[in-house]
């Protein structure tokens, strides 16, 4: 089955943390204040972060397993 996972375009990320605030799984962190990291094992592909991101730089990637 195809799964969806969030992916951040690191170069364009402003490290605002809007994505972090809405993630229901706490799968996002911004450890160094430079860009967001998605913990793929935790991400359930709900797409909330992508919707919230003010820079619209999170894409939902389809992963075939």
């Amino acid at each position, binding site marked *: 089955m195809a799964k969806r996972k969030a992916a951040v375009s690191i170069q364009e990320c402003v490290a*605002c943390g809007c994505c972090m*605030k809405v993630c229901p799984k706490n799968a996002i962190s911004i450890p160094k204040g*430079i860009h967001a990291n998605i913990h793929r094992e935790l991400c359930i592909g709900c797409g909330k972060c992508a919707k919230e991101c003010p820079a619209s730089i999170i894409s939902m990637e389809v992963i075939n397993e």
Partner: protein
Amino acid sequence: MTPKKKWYDYLWIVSLTYLILGFFNILFAWLGLLCFFIPLLIAIAKGNKAYCNKYCGRGQLFSLVGGRFRLSRKKDVPKWMKSKYFRYGFLVFFFAMFFLMLWNTWLVFSGAKNLRTAVTLLWTFKLPWHWAYHGTLFSAGVAQFAFGFYSVMLTSTILGFLTMALFKPRSWCVYCPMGTMTQLICKARNAATQQKK
């Protein structure tokens, strides 16, 4: 399921109160310096953007009004707005204006200029604001700084609400000068620690 609310998720109340207080007594504007120094200190000392990520009340206000109250088109910001040219350019412009404001404060402080009880919106429009001025204990410069600083805060709030309505609720975060600056500090700090390794 939404993530659980923490105490700092209510800091939008502080931001809103700050804006309102400026209508009653302009000297409260001085408190806004906290929104300048706290993010910088966190970025310098800890090397992260915890201020933006957790505590920024203004960002919360935008997501509340734009998100919960739906006063936002929720469209993508234009490409140029998230480009590094615009973000860094806006940072430079913002600080140039800030130093101009400090210079004006100095002129009033030194007595070269008289106090102007006005709030300048969008660096252009001077609004009479004398009702919020009830004298100052120290120098007129103290009040001039308050008017100047409140102008900065109100201007950025208006820009933020404008881009909230047009684009995503927290579009302001994309070009917020404080956010850009703290990210730059984090980048520099990270590059320095990498070099040491």
